[in-house]
């Protein structure tokens, strides 16, 4: 699909909405992971998500603060920002489509927390209006 297509990362990939296989909104492309190969090529290998990816891009005190808090709240086995492997990407357009379901991508611990402790406890939270 789209072999040899030209893609400007900042203009066409960064900060775009990521959408799951069911059309649900997952996250933004907060940053991109680049990996250098042995032969000196640089490849885009993953979408990086969350405050620890976004914070450094915002920069300044606020950005450091944002990334720092997320770092503190994360478990020791997960020192890096959550990532979606580029192999999951099925389409790059006005949104970035991925092959998995949102529930399968463990990207938003805050969402789960808010759901569990606040929104999920309000009657009617389980029904679409």
């Amino acid at each position, binding site marked *: *699909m789209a072999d*040899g297509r*030209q*893609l*400007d990362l900042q203009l066409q990939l*960064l900060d775009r909405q990521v959408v799951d296989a069911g059309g649900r909104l997952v996250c933004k492309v907060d940053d991109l992971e*680049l990996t250098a190969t042995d032969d000196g090529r640089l490849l885009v290998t993953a979408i990086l998500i969350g405050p620890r990816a976004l914070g450094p891009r915002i920069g300044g005190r606020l950005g450091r603060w944002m990334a720092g808090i997320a770092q503190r709240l994360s478990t020791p086995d997960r020192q890096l920002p959550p990532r979606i492997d580029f*192999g999951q990407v*099925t389409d*790059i357009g006005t949104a970035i489509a991925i092959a998995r379901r949102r529930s399968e991508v463990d990207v938003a611990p805050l969402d789960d927390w808010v759901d569990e402790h606040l929104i999920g406890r309000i009657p009617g939270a389980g029904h679409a209006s």
Partner: protein
Amino acid sequence: MRASDLIGADVLDRDGRRLGVVTDLRCVQDGPLRGAMATPRVAALLVSRRHTGSLLGYDRRDQQGPWLIRRIVRRLHRHLLEIPWTAVASYDGQITLTASAADLTGH
């Protein structure tokens, strides 16, 4: 490494002369197949004197309107360079090229 480590980084030529900052990474999707798509490979750096307004896309497209905004943004980026990734000697906070500024800008 992250894309944001390169975007916004200063670009120096072989002799240490500053050319500008990286405003974008131009990729070509011809890397190894990974899932449904070929992996994008960084093919070139877009380098301009400044970063302001490069996100709007006018520096790269001729026809995009409206006229007033296009004029302003293109003027800001009139020294836009596309430098092939193969011309990068090293990247570590700032980017150093293998060529001199004169070779790259043509004057």
